[in-house]
């Protein structure tokens, strides 16, 4: 029994090490004082270069703006859709639901290709607007699924009681449904935000010559060749993610202990 669990521990550690190996390498190389691959001493040069790199800064701000706008619009559309569809039956409901989930079911490249064709057919100027439309579309399912799962768990008699007491549909939504489903909206929106921030494929096909996002910028830099600024950029991005995750954990831990206090 003991031997077995030891093997399990070793296996888990080994896989985790392999998973983090590339990440650790990137972090270590971001402090390396040479463009080559040997270790030449500690430096923060790449970080200052990164700070002064305007194209990365613009790309980052674009990404942030795009992710925020698309996840928020998706939150509104997806929540309304889930509330309007869950527990209600009409003929096309199943088909509609399946079609709405297609964006995250099929390989991203198909959606990218479809938008490239569709938007040029509509003669929309490629850039922020087209990316926003595309990102909103693939963000909606994350919120829809989350909210729907919560709605099916809810006791319908709560909303019915409010209706019986004379509340209108809008009032029931804002006073009863929305507070109850809010955590799922939030987690869906966060997931959508992360997906939008990370997206390479769909942005690649819907962006214009003028607008770049952070992943697109990284992609083109990687294709061009070695620039250690990327290492620094990657380290900063990793740090940001760890920071956000740590805060989320802290908030959650505090919430859990609240009843005790």
């Amino acid at each position, binding site marked *: 029994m003991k031997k077995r669990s030891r093997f399990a521990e070793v296996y*888990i550690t080994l896989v985790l090490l392999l998973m983090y190996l590339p990440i650790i390498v990137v972090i270590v190389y971001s402090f390396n004082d040479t463009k080559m691959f040997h270790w030449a001493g500690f430096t923060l040069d790449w970080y200052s270069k990164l700070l002064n790199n305007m194209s990365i800064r613009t790309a980052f701000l674009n990404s942030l703006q795009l992710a925020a706008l698309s996840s928020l619009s998706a939150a509104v559309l997806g929540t309304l859709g889930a509330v309007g569809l869950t527990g209600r039956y009409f003929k096309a409901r199943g088909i509609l639901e399946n079609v709405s989930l297609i964006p995250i079911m099929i390989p991203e490249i*198909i959606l990218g290709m479809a938008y490239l064709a569709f938007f040029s057919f509509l003669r929309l100027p490629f850039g922020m607007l087209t990316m926003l439309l595309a990102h909103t579309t693939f963000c909606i399912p994350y919120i829809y699924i989350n909210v729907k799962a919560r709605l099916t768990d809810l006791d319908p008699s709560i909303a019915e009681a409010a209706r019986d007491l004379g509340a209108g549909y809008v009032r029931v939504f804002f006073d009863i449904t929305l507070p109850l489903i809010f955590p799922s909206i939030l987690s869906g929106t966060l997931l959508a935000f992360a997906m939008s921030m990370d997206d390479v494929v769909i942005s690649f096909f819907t962006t214009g010559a003028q607008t770049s996002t952070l992943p697109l910028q990284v992609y083109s830099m990687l294709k061009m060749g070695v620039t250690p600024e990327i290492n620094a950029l990657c380290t900063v991005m990793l740090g940001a993610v760890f920071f956000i995750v740590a805060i989320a954990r802290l908030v959650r831990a505090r919430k859990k202990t609240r009843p005790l206090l």
Partner: protein
Amino acid sequence: MKKQKLPSTHVSCQGACAARLPFILWTMVFVAIPLLYILCMSFMKKAATWGILAEFSLDSYQKLFDPVYVKVFGQSMWLAFLTTVFTLLIGYPFAYFTSKLPPKWRSLVLLLIIVPFWTNSLVRIYGWMILLRSQGVINSLLIMLGIIDSPLKLLYNFGAVLVGMVYALIPFMILSVYNSIAKLDPALVEASRDLGASRWRAFWTVTVPMTRAGIMAGCVLVFIPSVGLFFVSDLLGGAKTMLLGNLIKNELLTARNWPMGAALSIVMMTMTMIVIGIYKKVSGEKSLEGIV
């Protein structure tokens, strides 16, 4: 109970219909219509200079049987298959062992699996580029240890793409397998052990079949994206490893043959639907939400 619902839907439909209207419109305009549009486009002709000719033709579909395309197709499928197999072989034991850890460690391990997943996927692929390069970490280490004299060619081949794919997609496999193992009632395994089954036998006849839904979901989640992630093969495979995703990208941006790109997309989508259909049939799951 159900009968009570019927009259109320009529009254509340005003609200519900208003609520779902934007969602339905968005789905129609930005999902259904673009996909139908490329379906139509795949049956058209490439214009001599730029764009498409609105003329019915099966050219693009005929061209699919061209040996060049068939080869890319085969390579793509083979890579997706291998990726799925490797993620399952590495991920299943990992999820299984993790589920047996004490709760505190378990949540830490799960967190460590999820965090890279939230970081940029390009960053993680880039880490592999540094590791595998001819003057990269692995080669330098091997030369330093005197195991090899000249650097091995680790990057820009099929193997590197496979490593990248497995690496990028394994969290999906681990998490969906873990979810179904966590749901498994340990009493079932104990019962089979009490009845005299060996550890292995209990594992193969109880645990694995009981977690089949998770395995299936994980396979779908790995297989489908691995066909289309063109940047992994772009960065790790160089120009040599051509996948379906790269092919579509090239048809659109380099060859500018949009009907061909559309036809390839339609074929890829049909394949995806088939995989999802098989999943639904085998797992008995009605909707796909379980796997997202």
